[in-house]
């Protein structure tokens, strides 16, 4: 029943996001007469990020419930402490306040691109399990597609603000980024990866929101 609920919810999400993202893509593909303001692009990006984060959380939870024995869970909780730092990012609100807008956006882009690459590995790994719920696989695929959409939107956004685009391609495998012994079971590794992804998705969402706050010049957005 829970699977069905998740599936249904995913379906709704897909439809809503697809409709939402469609215009962005059309805008890029169509090219000529598409004018989308920075605010609109930003809002779309934030919506993407929020959804991605929520789905990543659900994926992680579902994975944990399906594959991780209880004993391990209680002790470990979230395994995201094992994540390696992909990019030095601000870790507190004060630090964020010291980062430029440009850097914020670039950080997001790097994170997105990282995880686009590595979710593929995760999906491959998930396929190897015997009893992987289809719902789980669908979610990961969905997240990957949305990440790619988010990347495109971010690139458009960066071009609009006329920054130089830093492309950061991290070709290393995910295993390199996990500060965990290799003897870790696949399950734990996958779980860790999901946790890390979730954390980074949260980061992406937060950065985008902060960036928006700065752009719209809200009084509440001032850090100082």
């Amino acid at each position: 029943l829970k699977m069905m609920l998740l599936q249904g919810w995913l379906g709704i999400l897909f439809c809503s996001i697809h409709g939402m993202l469609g215009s962005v893509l059309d805008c890029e593909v169509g090219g000529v007469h598409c004018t989308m303001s920075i605010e609109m692009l930003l809002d779309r990006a934030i919506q993407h990020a929020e959804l991605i984060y929520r789905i990543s959380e659900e994926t992680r939870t579902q994975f944990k419930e399906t594959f991780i024995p209880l004993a391990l869970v209680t002790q470990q909780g979230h395994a995201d402490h094992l994540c390696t730092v992909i990019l030095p990012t601000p870790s507190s609100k004060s630090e964020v306040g010291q980062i430029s807008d440009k850097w914020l956006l670039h950080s997001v882009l790097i994170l997105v691109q990282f995880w686009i690459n590595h979710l593929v590995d995760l999906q491959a790994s998930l396929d190897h399990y015997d009893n992987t719920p289809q719902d789980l696989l669908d979610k990961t695929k969905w997240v990957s597609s949305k990440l790619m959409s988010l990347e495109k939107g971010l690139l458009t956004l960066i071009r609009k603000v006329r920054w130089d685009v830093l492309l950061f391609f991290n070709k290393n495998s995910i295993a390199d980024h996990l500060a965990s012994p290799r003897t870790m079971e696949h399950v734990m590794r996958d779980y860790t990866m999901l946790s890390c992804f979730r954390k980074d998705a949260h980061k992406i969402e937060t950065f985008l929101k902060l960036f928006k706050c700065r752009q719209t010049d809200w009084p509440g957005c001032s850090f100082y």
Partner: protein
Amino acid sequence: MTNTLYAGWRECPEYTASVQNECYFNKTYTHIWTSYRVQLRDTAYNITYDERCFTVENIVHPDPPVALNWTLLNVSRSGLNFDILVRWAPPPSADVQMGWMSLKYEVQYRPRNGTRWEKMDLESGTQLSIYGLNTDKEYEVRVRCTMSAFENFGEFSDSVFVQVAQIPSKESMFPVMLLLVFGGVGLLLLLLLIILSQQERLLVILLPPVPAPKIKGIDPELLKKGKMEQLDSLLRSQNVCKPHSAPKDPWVEFIQLDMEDVVEKSETSDTQHLLGLTHLGSSHALSLKGDDDSGRASCYDPDMGAEPESIPPVREVHSPVVARSSFSTHIHSTTTTPEAAGMHIPVQMQPSSQSWINMDFYAQVSDVTPGGGVLLSPGQQSSTPSKNTDMKKKKEDREEDVAEEEEEEGKLQLLVVDSDGGYSSETVARQQAADAASSRVAEQAYHTLSEPPQPHPQAWQGGYLAPDRQPHMPYFSPEAPLASVLPPVSDYTVVQEVGGSHHLLLHSAAPQASVCPPHPLKLPPGEPALPLGYLTPEFLENLSP
């Protein structure tokens, strides 16, 4: 404590004084998205009792929301339920506005003395509607929040209490309304039942059956064809038409004389008309008559006055062969017989003589000339002495008039048969019958409304009226011999032919429903029975169709 970036451990900066076994690391020690590891160690012995790993965002418990309040949305019509809108504000410590934190809220409520909290779905906004609360209960509402997509809820906010006073007027209205509705429905059902059960009776009342011919007290079998003799005897022996105190003859009063006609037509013209007309559209007259007479018996009807009014058109159509005696006519049709010599005209002097103007249909015999002529007087007078009631008086007067006229005329023995309600004609006919022994005529006569059957002991020969003023006497004398020869003189007898000796042959028209009891005898033999008079349902029942 250590984090993955730093290699070094840092000991708890502050051990909480008030609480045992508690260490406080303020926010300078932590960063978001950074993993930390906490160990509980015994430094002396280098024993690690416990270890925990976390990242900051995973262990965040937001502060409770603030400023919780509620407003009433609406109350149900019955006054038993109400809806409220609950509002709150995010905790001030959460930087929601900037987007640093995204919070989700959970509202819970319960009745005041309940034990179980009702949990609403997670709400990302700062307001929520609660539906379906009872007005007679007080509710407690509280809210808490968590970071979106995280699992840790903060503390609950302070509870607010919700209560809505009952509105008694609305409540009391409701049962009253129900009562009214049910009462109305019940009444309708009752009415339906009554209608259904009394269907037949109602139908009879609403749609009165058309009366069939029937004479009261006479076996309907006799009314069928061919049993004239028996009927004659029966009718003669009976007081068919009960006397009844007639009011002033209203219909006489209501008669509107067509003065033009009166003026135009002199006696002679009338007679000429009469004479000249051999074949009158009896049906014509009849039809006219028929239209006029809607079955109201002249016997019963005090409002017979209405009928004569309808007659004037007839009159104008063709002059009064059929009736319209009114004034002048001294046209009496003789049904038959013999102009017996004995003009035995009972004289009843009419004291007054009036001008033509006041003449009505039924001219009264005001005087009888020695030569046997009858002087007519206007019938409107009410001062004629009479032992009877006005109606009778009138009738008698008429009879007298007729008789007088007869006398006057002498030769012409015409019965003035009115086309209207056979009042006069009937009386005339009656008298004729009595005297002339026309059984049919006699039979006809009985009804006239209020009049008692008038006895006509005098033999009337040649159709002269021999009115007998005594009321309540058997109308028909058994002496009426001539029965078979003559066709029954109906109420509205139409002159068919003028006889050689200036007598008119009456053609009894189709019967008119003017008699109180149905008068099948008016029917010429062979003609279908038409409804005569107003039948009561009892008569109907007696008649076997």
